[in-house]
């Protein structure tokens, strides 16, 4: 008889102090934790997906990557890099252009017939869309110019070149 009575006495006394302290916070706290947990899970899964698709998310391949992978002729892809200095030859007969794209370790020859963008220059970054032929020459159907993140007036570019501090790519344009 004494044990149930003791429990009864302890029952009402023990629980009350806990809920009133926690209850007012619980809902907002729970929603806060729910939102935070959701964001963490979402961010984690997005990071996993993006790293899994890493190869498909690149816009272009460098000459070294193309030579490493031994891509079969005829597969469409994009090749990006710098136009090798003094490699551009314009064929007046059929209006085609031949040049080489480098990533400073490997080079791939490219032929293209069509309009080149204004920023296409030797030493300048370009992205060529097309396919490799059997001779390892990249037949471009489109050439896009890629410019770097440096912006400056022409006088500053000239001064930098004169003083030997030039770090950007390419020659100063007209």
């Amino acid at each position, binding site marked *: 008889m004494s044990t149930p009575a003791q429990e009864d006495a302890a029952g009402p006394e023990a629980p009350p102090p806990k809920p009133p302290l926690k209850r007012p916070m619980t809902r907002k706290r729970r929603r806060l934790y729910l*939102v935070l947990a959701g*964001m963490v899970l979402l*961010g984690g899964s997005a990071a996993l997906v993006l790293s899994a698709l890493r190869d498909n*998310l690149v*816009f272009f391949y460098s000459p070294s990557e193309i030579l490493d992978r031994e891509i079969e002729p005829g597969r469409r892809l994009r090749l990006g890099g710098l136009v090798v200095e003094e490699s551009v030859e314009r064929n007046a007969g059929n209006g085609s252009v031949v040049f080489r794209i480098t990533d400073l370790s490997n080079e791939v020859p490219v032929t293209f017939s069509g309009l080149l*963008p204004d920023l296409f220059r030797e030493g300048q970054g370009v992205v060529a869309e097309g396919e490799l032929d059997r001779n390892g020459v990249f037949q471009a159907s489109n050439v896009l110019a890629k410019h770097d*993140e440096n912006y400056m007036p022409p006088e*500053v570019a000239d001064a930098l070149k004169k003083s030997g501090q030039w770090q950007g790519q390419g020659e100063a344009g007209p």
Partner: protein
Amino acid sequence: MHRFANPNRFLRIAAVVLPWSAALTVALLGLGLYLALLVSPADYQQGESVRIMYIHVPAAWMALFIYSCLAAASAVALIWKHPLADLAAKASAPIGACFTFIALATGSIWGKPMWGDWWVWDARLTSVLILFFFYMGHMALTSAFEDASRGERAASILALVGMVNIPVVKWSVDWWNTLHQPASIVRMDGPAIHASMLAPLLVMAAAFTAYYVTVLILRLRGEILARKIGSLRLTRIQDRQEESGPHMREV
């Protein structure tokens, strides 16, 4: 934050801030456009067409900044249920969508002469397009339900989901090789842009921010008043029903 969540206090503060932010917008926009179009030099590579940068870059910054504000307001609305947070998210979405559209459109116009194409599916351009779709989805979802509060709740969850896209937009140019060039301003070794071109860019960014504050206040004020009118109408209808109730019974 809690103190500003009171709509009436917000309306009082807004009345003080609004003329200043409006004046600041006009002044900064005038100064920025003057610097950008007349004072700043042409670029050594891109020539005069570099001037579109002074619209394109600040608009893209605003697209990211406003989405972050939208997501923060949505989180506050979901967790603490402040009445003003839902309205702030709702009021921000169209402004952010406009800036995203401006960034996409000017980028396209800039891309044609410089890159040689209007649009390419590289990681930066695609993620900004997705950002634009998140804005559109948020606007559509907010007004998709008969019950406004349900729409706001669904839209704030969408806003938080879309927050995943923000770091992707920002660092896409560093994580993957893209046609879009890497960041010029926010980078470890200082801006890669000459001071004479950085100044108009920052003034334009400040002008766009002041514009956002001004339009946000205007839109929020409209939303608060619309909600007040809504509740007034509701009480009027209830009053009329109470008045007409006994009258109807007499007839």
